[in-house]
């Protein structure tokens, strides 16, 4: 099984990923998650020795299941047979089946059999090189240097290199190197040489008291993400249980997002029921800055998180300021109780400039910020309670409290309340929120999940939120709400129907009003989705989707958007070749009715494009195994717009109505 799993874009992982990615509208980078799941696919987790945060790394387990499993082992001793899992509350057959793909009950952990000879024998290397390019010329590449205008300095090629070395569960070295389209590969400007982004980490697990040691790039996730959370996190979505956050503590950072990580040293030390995680990080960030006329000092006006350094301007802002973060987390775990305290300080080499608009006047200014946080989780009977209180010293607080309850074997509920003050700041804040960051928001969320056997599943939630202070393009305190429902019918393992409806109402400034003072109007967005998945035979399966969005301001008529697609997936059990293809038709009345859809991609590549205007999209994505340990991927895609003569704007503009892209990737495992 191990060899087989290494060779393909594992369908089990693809499936987990799709369920998660489908619910996010933004282009997240899921590399870290896929890598983590692929890792456990090859090196199964020992359930008898797994800690809470290791179990949480398997995203498909919900907090109640994890708590029940840990409690079962604490009370009854080690699992002797995997069949025992069926006797644990909350474990249905589907969950157990998925779980056993990533874990078992007797795999070795720790440096039990470590020796240098073993390191060479058991160690596995994994090298991936990916090349990508948009085939049409974009305006930014065709501006002569003499013109003095902004232009892309590098070539339109994107080259990504990824190297991993793993020794069982205990040692991992990661290296990522990325050059985005438009970036220069070799340049002496800004004293950078080689690819634009380089990230590396060395991760060691379970050396006596040291449960985790990371040298290099790392991420930290504690509590519900109000105080300190970097890297991947999920928002509100169809899977009710992924909304409440499951913190993983310290992890090596292996993603190619160029912003949300730490660089330095961190370790997790275990003292019985206590775990202590100190960390220190120094790195440089991209920022726009300007001169403060009063102090004659340079100040930060904005942090730039895209990680793109293509134009002279972007290059000038690259690594402009320094960020030093140091602090620690102390976690107490005992049976069903977990309590954590986090404290850290972030120092910047320049002051943050005060906000110049009314809506952002409470934002952080200064160069030093201290954050404190306390989080808890506790399981009582069939109810999992969780929460976090966060404070930014000398300014506001934020807190969240909630519960997940399994009301009957078929019905589970999630409720939580949140209150984030308008002057609460954290630069590593990913708390559950309607806005992009967890501040200036109050809300109450309630959701239910019905699961009747394997066949029927129904998810529904409502969320009511208030923004006590103004926001961007909202010139008054405002309110809004969201209702989401999804019905899934799975008559057979290979056949699935999904119906989804979502409505969201928010307030915004009245558009196009010619008055001195902006007033608010309600904006309503509705989504309808219908999807069918079915298998034709053992190798071929099909997937169809129809999705409609409806967008309305109080002052305007309904706008509509439509997306239809047909997928063909070819996944034979034992073949060197596999792949998938999609043809999609979209017709939307502009930006407000755009529709996002997850796409299959080369391994560790992700795309969730947003469709607007009118036209067709096609892609063909395939994998071929040359020989054992050597795989090759190729993806070709194009979007043909029927109502446009140029695509995009500014430096990205393409003359013509076709935008096509190619990605090729090779992997060598040794």
């Amino acid at each position, binding site marked *: 099984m191990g060899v087989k799993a290494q060779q393909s874009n594992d369908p089990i992982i693809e499936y987990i990923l799709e369920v998660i990615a489908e619910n996010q509208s933004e282009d997240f980078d899921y590399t870290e998650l896929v890598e983590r799941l692929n890792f456990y696919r090859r090196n199964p987790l020992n359930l008898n020795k797994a800690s809470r945060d290791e179990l949480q790394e398997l995203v498909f387990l919900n907090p109640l299941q994890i708590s029940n499993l840990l409690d079962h082992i604490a009370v009854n001793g080690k699992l002797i047979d995997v069949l025992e899992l069926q006797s644990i509350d909350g474990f249905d057959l589907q969950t157990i089946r998925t779980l056993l793909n990533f874990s078992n009950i007797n795999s070795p952990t720790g440096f039990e059999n470590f020796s240098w000879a073993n390191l060479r024998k058991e160690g596995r290397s994994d090298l991936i090189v990916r090349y990508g390019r948009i085939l049409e010329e974009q305006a930014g590449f065709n501006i002569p240097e003499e013109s003095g205008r902004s232009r892309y300095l590098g070539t339109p090629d994107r080259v990504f290199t990824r190297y991993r070395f793993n020794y069982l569960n205990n040692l991992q070295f990661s290296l990522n190197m990325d050059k985005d389209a438009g970036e220069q590969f070799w340049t002496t400007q800004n004293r950078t040489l080689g690819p634009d982004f380089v990230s590396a980490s060395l991760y060691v697990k379970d050396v006596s008291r040291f449960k985790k040691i990371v040298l290099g790039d790392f991420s930290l996730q504690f509590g519900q993400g109000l105080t300190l959370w970097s890297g991947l996190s999920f928002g509100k979505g169809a899977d009710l249980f992924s909304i409440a956050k499951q913190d993983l503590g310290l992890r090596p950072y292996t993603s190619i997002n160029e912003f949300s990580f730490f660089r330095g040293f961190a370790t997790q030390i275990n003292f019985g029921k206590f775990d202590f995680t100190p960390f220190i990080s120094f790195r440089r960030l991209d920022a726009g800055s300007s001169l403060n006329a009063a102090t004659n000092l340079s100040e930060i006006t904005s942090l730039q998180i895209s990680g793109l350094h293509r134009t002279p301007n972007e290059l000038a802002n690259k690594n402009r300021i320094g960020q030093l973060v140091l602090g620690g987390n102390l976690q107490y775990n005992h049976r069903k109780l977990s309590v954590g305290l986090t404290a850290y300080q972030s120092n910047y080499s320049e002051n943050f400039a005060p906000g110049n608009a009314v809506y952002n006047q409470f934002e952080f200014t200064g160069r030093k910020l201290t954050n404190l946080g306390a989080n808890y989780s506790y399981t009582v009977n069939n*109810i999992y309670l969780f929460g976090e209180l966060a404070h930014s010293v000398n300014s506001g607080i934020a807190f969240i409290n909630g519960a997940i*309850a399994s*009301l*009957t074997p*078929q*019905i589970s*509920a999630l*409720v939580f309340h949140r209150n984030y003050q308008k002057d609460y700041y954290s630069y590593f804040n990913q708390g559950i929120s309607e806005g992009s960051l967890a501040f200036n928001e109050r809300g*109450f969320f*309630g959701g*239910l999940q019905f699961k009747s056997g394997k066949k029927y599943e129904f998810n529904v939630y*409502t969320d*009511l939120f*208030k923004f006590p202070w103004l926001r961007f393009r909202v010139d008054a305190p405002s*309110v*809004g*709400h969201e*209702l989401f429902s999804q019905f899934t019918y799975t008559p057979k393992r290979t056949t699935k129907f999904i119906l989804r409806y979502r409505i969201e*109402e928010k307030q915004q400034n009245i558009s196009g009003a010619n008055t001195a003072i902006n007033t608010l109007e309600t904006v309503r967005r509705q989504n309808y989705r219908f999807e069918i998945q079915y298998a034709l035979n053992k190798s071929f399966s099909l997937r169809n989707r129809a999705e409609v969005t409806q967008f309305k301001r109080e002052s305007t008529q309904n706008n509509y958007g439509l997306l239809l697609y047909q997928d063909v997936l070819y996944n034979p059990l034992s073949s060197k070749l596999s792949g998938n293809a999609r043809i999609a038709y979209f017709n939307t009345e502009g930006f407000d009715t755009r529709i996002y859809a997850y796409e299959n991609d080369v391994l560790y590549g992700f795309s969730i494009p947003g469709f607007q205007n009118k036209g067709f999209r096609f892609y063909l994505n395939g994998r071929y195994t040359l020989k054992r340990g050597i795989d090759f991927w190729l993806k070709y895609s194009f979007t043909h717009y029927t109502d446009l003569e140029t695509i995009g704007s500014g430096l990205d503009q393409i003359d013509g109505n076709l935008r096509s892209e190619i990605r090729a990737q090779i992997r060598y495992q040794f």
Partner: protein
Amino acid sequence: MIKFYTILIFILCSKTVFTQTLNGPRIQAMGNAGVAIQDIWTLKNNAAGITSLENITFALAYENRFSVKELSTKSAAIAIPLKKYTLGASFQSYGSPVYQELKSGLSFAKSFGENFSTALTLNYHQLSIQNYGNTNTFSFQVGFQYQIFKNFWIAAHAANPNKSQYTETESNTLPALYQIGASYTFSDKLLLTSEVEQVLNGKLDFKTGLEYKIAPFLALRGGTSVNTFQQFGGFGILYQKINLDFAISSHPVLGYSPQIAVGYAF
């Protein structure tokens, strides 16, 4: 200042004020989706729900709408099970001496076997506005509940279908309401309920809620209505023969309305 807000709120929601009946905190906490529920407070919206009561039951409730004293409602209800049918009576007072609405109702409910029950309610409405005068009128309500299979009930109810009104001016019409809904009890612990409500010439609303018995003496409740979007929550305590229920509703603009009730079953 309080007066000013009172009047402002009164004007803002005068339309909805007329449609408000106090449903009791148990039903309110479940999003007011009470048409298919069995409870003493169904006297207000589908009295067919009182036929399941085995003993004489009475209850008192108080609600402070949007936390404004002048918009408070007091209500009393009693149900008396007799051999072949159940009698109910309810009384409700809304407002302050400046503006006051009184509603008194008599209900006659009868069950046919274990699975079907129906009820008829006759109401007497009084409205008095200071320095303006008094007026009164009658209305009636009719409804039924039917158990399709064990623990699954469907129900329908109409209030004031004959559109009776206080005077001949149109703005004083009592609303005509139609509701259909269903409730299901999963195990002993969990009750789910939903209903669709149409106000004649008015809005359509969908409401849903649940009650979860976390312990034999303690129930937690929550619910939502869609139009207008509101969230509800509450709890109930049962101590021997005494019921204590509390509910709170949250309106996105007008704020919170707490409600409390105490009930006794002989």
